[in-house]
């Protein structure tokens, strides 16, 4: 695509975000790999362009802006802060060889503040406004509702932790849920292990970093798990309703309120969703036209932990033109305090592609 047209669109979007009060920030294209890869894991590592520097160690071509921008914010401590940035990001496309391996992202992030619903509405509405009148479908979700539902299950903390960790990996989440619910039996090897009085008695010598104490601790937690009652079928059914939910945002809110009667743990998250829809309405968004999917964002980057959204072209199977969401937990991992953070990015090349088809 025409580089000059993309540059012009990038400038236009950056100007929109600057006009919305964002400070322009810059980050290096070449980033230290350690922090990024420890945070994102192998899925992103497999899609990143890695290189090594004799003095700096392993480096990566910026796979996204969020981490360096958060790190920058953690040093400035401005509150609240609005940032915008623009530049290329790089992703290998083994699985979809037709897709771009480098493309521009123009981002808008809001950090700090004390009204999360307002900040979410601000980010969504600012991005929607920057996209102008492009005919795009908006999809939304809320990982926070899912997390609250898992946290509220009447089962052991260990099981909740295990499910929470796999919210972003639907297949393993389902496998765990089936086992914790007693729908699938534990593997035979586990039953055999737990039948022994002391599985570590006469166990082979250990090699490597993992210690005998760690193995003993895992066996103790397996015993605890085997003794725990299964998660009730009715609770799993409620979780499934949330996961399968697809409706307009106001309808989804109604359904979730219904579920909250039997599952009070999701009440605060549902109240927050209500506040968000009000805030979106105040910003002129037609919330009746917003789609809500209970599982939306589960296969996106793992750091989103609340409101998530994406804007899609009506036809074709292109990646979303814009995406974003809340990522409070990420700021906690990168700094010493967690700062509420929500943001999103637009791809100017895809804006132009959609505009060309209009």
């Amino acid at each position, binding site marked *: 695509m025409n580089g000059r047209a993309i540059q012009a669109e990038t400038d236009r979007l950056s100007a929109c975000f600057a006009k919305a009060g964002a400070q322009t920030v810059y980050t290096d294209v070449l980033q230290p790999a350690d922090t990024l890869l420890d945070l994102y894991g192998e899925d992103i590592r497999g899609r990143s362009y890695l290189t090594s520097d004799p003095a700096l160690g392993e480096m990566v071509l910026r796979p996204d802006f969020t981490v360096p921008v958060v790190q920058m914010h953690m040093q400035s401590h401005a509150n609240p802060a609005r940032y915008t940035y623009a530049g290329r990001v790089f992703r290998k496309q083994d699985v979809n060889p037709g897709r771009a391996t480098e493309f521009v992202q123009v981002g808008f992030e809001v950090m700090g503040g004390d009204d999360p619903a307002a900040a979410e509405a601000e980010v969504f509405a600012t991005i929607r406004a920057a996209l102008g009148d492009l005919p795009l479908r908006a999809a939304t979700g809320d990982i926070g509702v899912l997390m609250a539902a898992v946290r509220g299950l009447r089962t052991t903390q260990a099981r909740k932790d295990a499910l929470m960790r796999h919210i972003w990996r639907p*297949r393993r989440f389902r496998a765990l849920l089936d086992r914790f619910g007693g729908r699938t039996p534990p593997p035979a090897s*586990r039953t055999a292990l737990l039948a022994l009085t002391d599985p570590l008695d006469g166990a082979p010598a250990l090699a490597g*970093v993992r210690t005998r104490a760690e*193995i003993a601790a895992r066996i103790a937690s397996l015993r605890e798990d085997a003794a725990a009652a299964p998660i009730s079928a009715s609770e799993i059914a409620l979780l499934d309703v949330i996961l399968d939910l697809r409706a307009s945002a106001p309808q989804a809110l109604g359904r979730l309120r219904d579920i909250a009667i039997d599952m009070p743990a999701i009440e605060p998250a549902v109240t927050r969703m209500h506040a968000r829809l009000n805030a979106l309405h105040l910003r002129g968004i037609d919330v009746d036209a917003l789609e809500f999917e209970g599982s939306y964002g589960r296969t996106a980057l793992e750091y989103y932990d609340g409101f998530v959204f994406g804007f899609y072209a009506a036809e074709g199977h292109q990646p979303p033109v814009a995406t974003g969401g809340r990522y409070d937990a990420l700021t906690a991992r990168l700094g010493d305090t967690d700062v509420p953070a929500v943001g999103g990015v637009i791809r100017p090349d895809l804006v132009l592609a959609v505009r060309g088809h209009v």
Partner: protein
Amino acid sequence: MLKLGVPSKGRLMEKTFQWFGKRGVTLRKSGSDREYAGAVDGIDGVDLVLLSAGEIPRELAAGRIQLGVTGSDLVREKLANWESTVRQVTPMGFGGADLIIAVPTGWVDVDTVDDLDAVAAAFRATHGHRLRIATKYHRLVREFLAREGVADYALVDSQGATEGTIKNETAEAIADITSTGETLRANGLKVLSDGMIHASQATLFRSSRSGWTMAQRDTFRVLEHKLGL
């Protein structure tokens, strides 16, 4: 000419020569034993190219050879979307080896991929870094673990003596090729019962025919007939 790439040394080369020989196509090294030049008898229009087994996938994908014998694991590891660039002609029934995940035998609490995942979570919380899996099969292992939904691990590159990495404390688990499991056992390692990533064997592959000449297509048809395919 139709170029046939064959591993340039060792048992894989000998077995490949035997496999073709049994079907009336004689492959042999020409000149001295140290030379990597080959000759083909029993069919016209086929050139023998002796290459490292690891380079054959790339040469096939690039279209520099039209046929190649190599491990099915290597094609999957070295080529993204291998099915869109090369085609399998036939498995050859030798060179069998399994790409598996192995952990220390002393890990009595670990038997399945599910166990490995749970241990990775606890390990990361305890040690402050991801559970390391040493391998040279990055693509295959990563795809397998992503499909299985395993988290909190990191792959570390190991191009040889992978079984030793655990004792050396540079990895907690390994993913490697094994045929009998003897080296694993000798190093105090056991295989995850559901951790079979790929059952590999020597396989005859061909490049995409779109770039082939008429003569190459004709020769391939004759060869297919001779090989009984």
